[in-house]
């Protein structure tokens, strides 16, 4: 039979069973017992059909209300049990978060400080309109010396401590000039002037070689050459260019500089340039950083240009040296020793791309 008291009893009985279900399996059994095909509520629903219409409507509404209450309770209990089950599972999933992790390859690799400074220097000079020229390490005597106004037997040649390559020997069969390792990046000036009409603005970074080795000299090192050739660039422009470079490179507001007259066969007038070591936080001493001057008329003429019409400046500086100065690297020889400890300490990350806007070294 169906009666209101029975329905109320069924409801309270089912709700307490739902409440008592300890896990999802038990809950499912309650659901089947209540709402399954042969469940108690389903049976009640089936019996409704046998009642007179008046009674059927009233009891039908009441039965539906019980069904809804039970369904809601089932849902709520299910959610609660699921949450509890998840909590229980998660409680077992404990990682030892103190275990060390690897930072990945981008943190392991390093850019050599000289490469980094290469990029820094290019960034600065590109902004002043210089492009980057290159030349071979193995040069001819003509391009390394003669065209640069350093004739044979000139005392300046002896100061260069040149490495020569062996002759091909008698089997060589050719009359090729004896080759040498360039002693400076200046032959790139010549190569550029021989192949490119003015106006010219280039820098030329690269390896150079001198047969010399002690605490402050290595038989291989890096230089960067600068060259402007046009019809009006003068010594005042050179001074400005070097002053601007030093400020940008050392990333300071002001660099005190000293320009001293000097002599290089390929420039006239020539000057050597010192900076006040205050730029690297060590005030009180002058540091020689480069040699420079106005390109010698003979050099311009040797490249097929008219020195009455064209003029300009050139400079050459030690890339390793300015790297050491800027980043406080004590010994030149370490640059080429490939010591991991050194490279990790002084090297740069791949993401440390120098830009003028973002800062060269930050």
């Amino acid at each position, binding site marked *: 039979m169906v009666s209101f008291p029975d329905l109320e009893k069924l409801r309270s009985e089912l709700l307490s069973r739902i409440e008592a279900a300890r896990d999802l399996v038990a809950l499912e059994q309650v659901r089947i017992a209540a709402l399954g095909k042969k469940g108690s509520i389903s049976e009640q629903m089936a019996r409704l059909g046998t009642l007179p219409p008046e009674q059927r409507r009233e009891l039908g509404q009441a039965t539906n209300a019980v069904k809804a209450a039970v369904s809601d309770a089932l849902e709520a209990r299910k959610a609660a049990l699921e949450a509890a089950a998840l909590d229980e599972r998660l409680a077992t999933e404990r990682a030892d978060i103190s*275990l060390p992790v*690897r930072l*990945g*390859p*981008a943190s*392991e*690799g*390093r850019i*050599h400080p000289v*490469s980094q400074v290469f990029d820094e220097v290019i960034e600065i000079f*590109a*902004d*002043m*309109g210089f492009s980057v020229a290159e030349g*071979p390490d*193995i040069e001819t005597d003509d391009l390394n010396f003669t065209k640069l106004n350093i004739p044979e*037997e000139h*005392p300046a040649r*002896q100061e260069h401590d040149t*490495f020569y*390559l*062996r*002759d*091909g020997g008698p089997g*060589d069969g050719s009359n090729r000039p004896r080759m040498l390792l360039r002693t400076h990046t200046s032959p790139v000036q010549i190569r550029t002037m021989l192949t490119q009409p003015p106006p010219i603005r280039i820098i030329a970074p690269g*390896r150079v*070689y001198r*047969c*010399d*080795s002690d605490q402050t000299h290595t038989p291989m090192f890096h230089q960067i050459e600068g060259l*402007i050739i046009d019809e009006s660039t*003068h*010594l*005042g*422009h050179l*001074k*400005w260019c070097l002053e601007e470079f030093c400020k940008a490179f050392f990333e300071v507001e002001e660099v005190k500089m000293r320009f*001293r*007259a000097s*002599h290089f*066969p390929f420039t*006239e*007038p*020539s000057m*050597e340039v010192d900076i006040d070591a205050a730029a690297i936080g060590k005030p009180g001493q002058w540091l020689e950083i480069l040699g420079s001057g*106005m390109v010698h*008329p003979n050099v311009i003429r040797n490249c097929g240009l008219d*020195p009455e019409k064209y*003029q300009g400046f050139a400079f050459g500086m030690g890339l390793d040296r300015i790297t050491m100065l800027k980043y406080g690297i004590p010994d030149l020889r370490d640059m*080429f020793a*490939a*010591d*991991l*400890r050194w*490279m990790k300490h002084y*090297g740069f*990350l*791949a*993401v440390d*791309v120098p830009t003028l806007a973002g800062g060269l070294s930050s």
Partner: protein
Amino acid sequence: MKLTLSWLQDHLDTEASLEEIADRLSAIGLEVESIDDPAAKLAPFTVARVIEARPHPNADRLRVCVVEVAPGKPPVEVVCGAPNARTGMIGVFAPLGTHIPGTGITLDKRPVRGAVSNGMLVSERELELSEDHEGIIELDPAHGERIGARYIDVAGLSDPVVDVKLTPNRPDCTGVRGIARDLAAAGLGKLRPEPRLGTVEGAFACPVDIRLEFTPETADACPAFAGRLVKDVKNGPSPAWMQSRLKAAGLRPISALVDITNYVSLDRGRPLHVYDADKLKGAIRARLGRAGERFPALDGREYAVDETMCVIADDSGVLGLGGIIGGESTACTEATTSVFIESAYFDPLRTAATGRKAGVQTDARYRFERGVDPAFIVPGLDLATDLILKLAGGNPSKRRVAGAPPEHRATIAFDLRRIGRLTGLTVKEAESRKVLAALGFEVGGKGPDVKVTPPSWRPDIHGPADLVEEVVRIVGLDKVPSTPIPRVQGVTRSVLTEAQRRGRRARRVLAGRGLVEAMTWSFIPRPQSEQFGGGAEVLELANPISVEMSSMRPSLLPGLLSAVQRNRNRGFANVALFELGQAYRGDQPEDQIQIAAGVRAGAARLAGFGRHWDAPAEDAGVFDAKSDVFATLAALGFDPTRAQIAREAPSWYHPGRSGVLRLGPKTVLAHFGEIHPATLAALDVAAPAAAFEIFLDALPPEKRKSRARPAMVAPDLLPVRRDFAFVLDETVPAGDVVRAATGADKVLIADVTVFDVFAGKSLGPGRKSVAIEVTLQPRERTLTDPEIEAVSAKVIAEVKRITGGEVRG
């Protein structure tokens, strides 16, 4: 070039301080390398008299000296062990507290064998004046007048020594007077007039004949030779003032006659030579050498001469190398009574070549190869004669001059406005003229276009640019106004070439993959060169600094592998290094190639190095190297799957675990693989290593025309994935399976990956299984099962056709 302040003041009338002089010298191109002021360390030492030297009560070899250290002050007792310490001598005293430079000891009051010493009497070695430690310094008794005076003042040691680094263009500054002239021009005083000489021209003809024996073609070797004989000289030590100046300049005093030649050389940049005239046989001749001739030189060595060298000879043969070094046989000694003075001109180039060939550097060569003043041949001879007469006495002959000095001076047409054009510095016309005149230039003509004749002592001046330098260095480079260079473009443009951009990018890709960038030498040991495909004769250095650095590298790997082992020796087992740099296939510019190379030794893998709780520590292998190559190429805008992979890596790779990436039959883009165990052994590398070499120049140029990316194709339809496993012969490359599957349907198949490879007993000997996942991308509508089946059938058929592989059930 070392000179003392007082020596400079002989030529320069100046009030300027030492510091001002040094700063100005550096500014005008005569760089001061160092200043040595002996006053700084020797100032406390004073002149003292030993009033009494009596025996030490407790030691036979010691004496107790009662020393007068200052007039009127009570004497002090000093214990002294010197054998020459005796009553009445004048010595040099150091009071307590003095730092003794030669021993590094600071004196304190300490009893010596029971007798208290209140100071010290010092030797020359204790003052670092010489190696003499035979006894304490013994001064001339006349200095007894100056008890208490500073020793440096009495001994003439208070003169600071300035070391100037000369540039090779300034032979005139190889003499003190030249430096004084530059300083005077720069406003630091007045150049004093030339000293007045006594009567040097004698009454009798020079008995030594001078002959220049050259052909017209070689006459420039020694175009002028002046000489004079001085007889009845008495050669002994030169006076103390000359000796101390020579010592300050770094020369050893020998005898008055020799010292005078050195002094004139330093004072005027005018080298001279003196011969003992009694040892000369017949005429003195300047000529070229002859094969087989040899002579013993003043430096104790014997030199062989040849037909390119200018020699000085007499009837007995070669006496010396002209302008470089004299001979032993005619050297002046204490016994010399008759001296022949040579003042000649030797050609700079020939002198340099001869000196280089003979391997001898001397002060004379240094000056002649830079070009001595041709107008100072006779004045130099007279100056030397005057000094000889004053210091060694004697009776001079008339001078004899053979030949005539070369005339270098050419008048230069100079537009004074060029100074401004070349330097941006405005110099008044009058000032330019004044500077040039002060330096000895003759300036003729009015207005800005002038005619300038350089002085005879400036062989470095050839044209207007040289004159601009003279004016601007003296007026002051600091006055040149900094002038901004005009910007070429408003906003900076990219300036790097494609190759430069690629190199830069490759470097950062590799560093981002955990490799550390090394820079290794361009030259390596020859056996390593040979092992890596190099060793050509033309790439060997003729003058390497060591056999370890003798051969231009054909590959970057030997340097990197050696670096790996050095790091292993320091305790780093797992090392990943790369280098981006040049290698050499020949000696021509196009033979220099740009390579990005890397080595992973030990467990140096992308995920991490060595052991870690999270992953096993496996040694890096061929696929780590291949991954580095592919990632780099992809980052450089080149799709590596476009290239062919071949098993033809060079001999330094493991033959079975290496490969070459080729584009077409000839272009090799990269090598990768494990290093051959024999190569590792030869380089003493004690760990397995994988390596790669990417030939950056071989990459095809980028074809991109526009910065805009192509339209993105992203179909809405879900891709379908199907797995296949094929059994095939184990020699068939998996890449062939991938290529065959990819080609089975070019429209639908979007991707093919290999997800499993294995070989096992179940497959039978020589067989392996390759499992692939094929991704089908529907384009317009969802694929039906029959369509998917049809594509699958095509994949199976194509793989079978190309590889012979059978699909596994």
